[in-house]
């Protein structure tokens, strides 16, 4: 009888534990209050490296750019972004409804949405030949290519949303040089503009397990009076969060009803 009782209690205990674990798992799933590696844990593990010794910057990351205000989030004071008068005037005139992103077009460099993104490091028999930057939503379903095979920019690139990007590692810093941008995307939701003369340099450095700094330099004589450097930091998505580190499907044009509630048509004109 006693054995039966002990066995029964054990079974109940196991069942309860399983139930609690299932609940906790679901709770963690529901409420990743802080889905990135906490400040106190940024050095909790060594910086991972690939088999060839290359620093692993795959991520998944959160942040590392701006969505709302490139000037503010990049560490500048209000008014410090050296926009030419025409560009400043255009920024003031732009309306939220005209933002290209609302029409499911890409955000552009260096904008980020509050969703995970990755540097997908692509190896072939020739080594690391490409890095693809993949945003869950910021690229509106597209992908950005960074050529790591030593090629040069073409002399006459067709202006595109992501431009033509070449990359190289300087020690542990990934340096991305990009030209050939179109002038259609907005740097932020404030409507900060640029021109097709835009040339950007991104310096991505994984400074520890949990953080990666991004030094972003804008060189655009068409819209800025001088070069300017902004600073951002990306945070690693905390390992183990269910669905947290995976880039889920996002087909923006599936059913974009933006504007209808306000009787707005022709959204995302980019004006």
């Amino acid at each position, binding site marked *: 009888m006693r054995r039966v009782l002990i066995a029964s209690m054990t079974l109940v205990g196991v069942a309860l534990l399983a139930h609690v674990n299932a609940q906790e798992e679901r709770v963690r799933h529901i409420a990743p209050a802080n889905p990135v590696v906490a400040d106190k844990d940024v050095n909790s593990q060594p910086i991972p490296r690939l088999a060839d010794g290359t620093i692993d910057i795959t991520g998944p990351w959160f942040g590392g750019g701006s969505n709302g205000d490139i000037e503010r989030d990049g560490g500048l004071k209000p008014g410090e972004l050296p926009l030419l008068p025409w560009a400043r005037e255009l920024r003031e005139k732009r309306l939220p409804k005209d933002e290209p992103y609302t029409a499911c077009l890409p955000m552009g460099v260096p904008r980020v949405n509050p969703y995970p993104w990755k540097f997908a490091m692509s190896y072939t028999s020739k080594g690391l030949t490409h890095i693809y930057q993949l945003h869950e939503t910021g690229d509106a379903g597209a992908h950005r290519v960074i050529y790591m095979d030593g090629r040069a920019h073409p002399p006459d690139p067709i202006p595109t949303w992501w431009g033509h990007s070449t990359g190289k590692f300087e020690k542990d810093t990934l340096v991305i040089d990009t030209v050939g941008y179109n002038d259609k995307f907005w740097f932020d939701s404030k409507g900060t503009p640029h021109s097709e003369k835009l040339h950007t340099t991104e310096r991505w450095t994984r400074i520890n397990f949990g953080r990666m700094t991004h030094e972003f330099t804008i060189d655009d004589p068409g819209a800025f009076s001088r070069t300017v450097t902004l600073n951002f930091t990306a945070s690693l998505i905390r390992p183990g969060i269910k669905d947290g580190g995976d880039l889920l499907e996002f087909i923006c044009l599936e059913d974009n009803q933006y504007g209808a*509630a*306000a009787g707005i048509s022709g959204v995302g004109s980019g004006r």
Partner: protein
Amino acid sequence: MNTGFGSLIAVLGIVASTIPVFAHHGFDTEYDAKKKVKLTGVVTQVAWTNPHMRVYIDVAGPDGKVINWNLELTSPNRIRRQGWGPNDLLPGEKVVFEGYGGKIVESRGSLLSITKVGEDKPLFEEGGPDTAGQQTPF
């Protein structure tokens, strides 16, 4: 409803105040913060669509006329990461919801919270004008 789901909605109620409205665009362009509504209706469709999920709800007015409300949430991915699944709210279920009406088309609203009739905790709460622009991850 099983107890697991009961816990799910309880937790959603607690955490929901930190959820931003839209990551894809802001609140003010489309919705009117002065048009807050609290209505009861019957779910006709739960659309797990991009860029933003929508719940359609039939609401009968005092005159018996039924209006199908089209309520916008955030992205399906964000909702999924908060624990919502395709079986958690189904067509035919009666709900109480709060939201903000559209600037021009009032029945195109922004969903603030939704609770199944008979339950005391909301199934889902969104933000609203007060939380617009927050950059809460996911």
